[in-house]
């Protein structure tokens, strides 16, 4: 019997399982193949929803689903934390067991490490996980005006466009609450422009200017002085704030680091086309966990899952795996409370944003509800 182990029950792991199983259902039924998904939480989180949760537009319950409800019934589900991937022995060790595999899929995502910026935990907020988002929702509800700094404290981070989106929605949120006149919004970015992709900068920067959203570039926070509410940067600058919305530094999963499989950032070195882990014929990696020069986005995980599922099914059937990932990404960009644009790009095509519209915003709002169909492999 062949054993396929998928590690991680986020978008990447769930979709890989749900695309894979229908392709090899006969083999599973005949007992020739077993698909096991190991994940450390009994539920999945729809992280893009955090952007709406902080403004009280979506609630906690809408952003969580039981993992069992999402996965094809033919998948064995193990709720346990993996502590070690023993690549040389082809097995995964968890807190409560050991799982041998013939093929392993690493889909362990990224984690935020606010502790890497001293003072950030005490002095700042973020919306990149549940606890942070709930705390920020409270802070925003109580905010009565002042200076808000939206600061990107490390690259790469999940959803590259989210810091711009939060700045735009915040502008409208404050306007709606009659606080915009009493407030300043400052957006900061580590490199010499407000975003990594020039076509996006060309569209977004004038929109920041129109709305009076200020920005600073080459801004790399070294520490946060929580007591005096100041950010101190590596470039020798200081910036004061009343409310700090940080995008904390990110790293790959702890289990990847502890298994010696990650690079310096804890990202899994992955072939950009085949999605095989470099140096291993029986290991794939996808989603936020990889070191690929593509966005850490759910849409990327989605397109990659199609490729990994197709190649795994081919390997099981004894066919040469030929599916390739072409770097495709799709991101909505909310440019206000009720308008949005979107970009798509791949390894060969740069992004070309379209004029923001209400229509695109409503499509995104609808997608926020429809996402669970995507997770099930239906949409």
């Amino acid at each position: 019997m062949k054993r396929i182990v998928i590690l991680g029950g986020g978008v990447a792991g769930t979709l890989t399982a749900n695309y894979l199983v229908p392709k090899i259902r006969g083999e599973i039924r005949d007992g020739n193949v077993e698909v096991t998904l190991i994940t450390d939480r009994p539920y999945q989180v729809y992280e893009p929803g955090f952007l709406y949760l902080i403004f009280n537009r979506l609630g906690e319950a809408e952003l969580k689903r039981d993992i069992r409800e999402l996965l094809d019934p033919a998948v064995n589900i193990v709720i346990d934390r993996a502590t070690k991937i023993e690549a040389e022995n082809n097995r995964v060790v968890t807190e409560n067991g050991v799982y041998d595999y013939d093929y392993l899929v690493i889909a362990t995502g990224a984690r935020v490490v606010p502790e890497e910026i001293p003072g950030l935990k005490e002095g700042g907020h973020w919306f990149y996980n549940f606890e942070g988002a709930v705390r920020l929702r409270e802070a925003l509800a109580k905010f009565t005006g002042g200076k808000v700094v939206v600061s990107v404290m490390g690259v790469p981070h999940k959803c590259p466009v989210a810091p711009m989106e939060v700045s735009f929605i915040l502008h409208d949120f404050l306007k709606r609450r009659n606080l915009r006149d009493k407030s300043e919004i400052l957006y900061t970015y580590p490199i010499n422009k407000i975003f990594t992709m020039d076509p996006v900068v060309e569209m977004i920067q004038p929109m920041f200017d129109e709305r009076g959203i200020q920005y600073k570039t080459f801004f790399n926070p070294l520490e946060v002085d929580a007591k005096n509410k100041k950010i101190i940067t590596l470039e020798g600058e200081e910036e004061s704030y009343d409310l700090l919305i940080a995008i904390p530094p990110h790293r790959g999963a702890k289990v990847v680091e502890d298994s010696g499989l990650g690079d310096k950032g804890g990202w899994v070195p992955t072939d950009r086309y085949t999605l095989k882990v470099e140096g291993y014929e029986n290991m794939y990696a996808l989603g936020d966990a990889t070191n690929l020069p593509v966005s850490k986005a759910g849409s990327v995980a989605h397109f990659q899952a199609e490729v990994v599922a197709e190649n795994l099914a081919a390997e099981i059937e004894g066919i040469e795996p030929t599916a390739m990932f072409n770097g495709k990404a799709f991101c909505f960009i909310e440019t206000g409370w009720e308008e949005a644009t979107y970009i798509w790009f791949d390894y060969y095509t740069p992004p070309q944003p379209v004029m923001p519209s209400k229509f695109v915003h409503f499509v995104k709002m609808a997608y926020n509800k429809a996402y669970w169909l995507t997770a099930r492999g239906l949409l």
Partner: protein
Amino acid sequence: MEDVKADRVIDARGSYCPGPLMELIKAIKEEDVGKVIEVWSSDESSAKDIPEWVKKAGHELIGVFEADGYWRIVVKKTK
């Protein structure tokens, strides 16, 4: 100048903007004042962006040297 001995070499070849710059930033945070850090990048924009950042952050740019298919950007941490 080209043969200044670096205390740390960051091989960021094959990584794209802003990878090489972010790696340098990390190294600057970690190293002591006076250390020389050399970044290798195959992304041409690094040859422009990194010196710009070094100037803004007030460190010393020892030089930008073109090697075989990549750039060597040598920086001294001065503060």
